[in-house]
C-alpha cells in the first residue's frame, strides 16, 4: 500500500510549534530553546575568555564593552535562560524519576515564579549597580 511520508525535517522541527499545546509541551519547548541558547552562549563565553590571552589592552576593551547597558541586558537574558533551564530542569529530573508527576503543572508554575522573582531581583542588582 503506497503511502505518503512527511519529510523528516518538518517533523524534527515540530517541537517548536507550541500553538494550542498544553503546558508540558511549552515547558519542553522552552527547555530546548534555552538549552540551545546556553550552548551558543558557551561558545561565545569561551571566545570572550580567549581575549584574556591577547593581553591587557584587549581585555580592557572587552571589559568596557561589558559594562554597556546593551551588554548588561544580554546578561539578564542569559540569567533568564539559566534560571528557566535550571529550575525547569529540576522539575524534569524529579518527574523523570516518578516524583511529583501528578503535580508537574503546579511544579512548573512554582519554579517559574521562583525564576521570575530571582530574575527581577538580579536585574535590579545588575542595572542598579
Amino acid at each position, binding site marked *: *500500500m*503506497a*503511502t*505518503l*511520508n*512527511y519529510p523528516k525535517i518538518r*517533523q*524534527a522541527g*515540530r*517541537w517548536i510549534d507550541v*500553538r*494550542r*499545546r*498544553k*503546558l*508540558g*509541551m511549552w*515547558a*519542553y519547548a522552552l527547555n530546548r530553546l534555552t538549552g540551545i541558547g546556553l550552548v551558543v552562549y558557551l561558545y561565545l563565553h569561551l571566545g570572550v575568555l580567549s581575549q584574556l590571552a591577547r593581553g591587557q589592552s584587549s581585555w580592557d576593551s572587552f571589559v568596557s564593552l561589558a559594562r554597556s547597558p546593551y551588554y548588561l541586558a544580554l546578561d539578564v537574558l542569559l540569567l533568564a535562560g539559566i534560571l528557566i533551564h535550571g529550575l525547569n530542569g529540576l*522539575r*524534569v529530573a524529579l*518527574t*523523570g*524519576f*516518578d516524583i511529583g*508527576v*501528578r503535580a*508537574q503543572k503546579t511544579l512548573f508554575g512554582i519554579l517559574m515564579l521562583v525564576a521570575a522573582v530571582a530574575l527581577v531581583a538580579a536585574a535590579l542588582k545588575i542595572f542598579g549597580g
Partner: protein
Amino acid sequence: MTSMKMVEVPLQIFRYKEGERPHYDTFTVQVPETAHVIDAMDAVWAMHDRSFTFRRACHHSSCGSCSLRINGVEKLPCITRVTDVWDGRAPLRLDPLRNFAIVSDLVVDVSSFFQRLSAAGMAITRDAEPSLPLSVDGLAVIGVSPKPVELPENLSCFNRFENCIECAICMSACPTMATDDKFLGPAGLAAIYRARQKTDNPIDVAHLLGMADGEHGVWRCHSAFECTAACPQAVDPAGKIMALRRELIGRRFKKR
C-alpha cells in the same frame, strides 16, 4: 417531532490521494447544534464528496479508530461536539494524525503502531475495580462517592476493558515520536507498564522491563507530558513511563 437547532459548519479537510499533491478542501454542512464532529464528517461524505475517506467504527470512544487532529489538536471526533471546537466563524480544520504515513485523506497507516502494541502484549481486558461508578473523567461532575460492589456467586471477579482504546492520539502528540522511528511511544510504554503489572512471572517481567529499558524505551521520553494531556481515556502514559523508570532504577540499586 422536536425541532433541532441546526448550524452551518465549514470544514477545512486535509485531502490526499496517492500520486496527487496534498491539499485542503472546504465543505459547509448543516448539522444539529448538538452534533459531534464525526456527524459533520459523515455529512461531508454523504452530501458533498463520496471520495472522502476517514476511519471510524463505534462512535463512542471504544474502538479508537476515528482519531485525528481538529484545529491542530489530537481528538476523537466521535466524542467532540462541534460547538466545543468551532468558534462559529473560521472553518474547522481536520488533519490526519502526525507521525504516521498517510494512506488517503484522514486515514493513516497504523501498522507500525499495532506492531509496538503486539510487542508489549498487553491483554485488552483486566480485572475491574471493586466499586462503582467508574469514569475516565472523574466523578466530580455527578458528585457521587464510590460504592463497593458484591460479586455474583458464579464470578470470582468482575472484568472490564482497559482504559486504553489504542487510538494512537498520544503517539501523534508526542514530540519524540517525530524523531525516533522505533520509539515504543507513550501507548507502547503504557501497555508495557500495564502488562508488567498483570504478571509476576520473572521471565515475562524481565522481557517487558528489558523493552522499557532499551534503546527505544522510557529513556527517550523528554517529559513533554503531551501524551497525558491529549489522551481521551485518562490512561496517563507519561505517569506510566515515569513509573517504569522508577522501577528500572530501583532494580539497578537492588542489584548492587
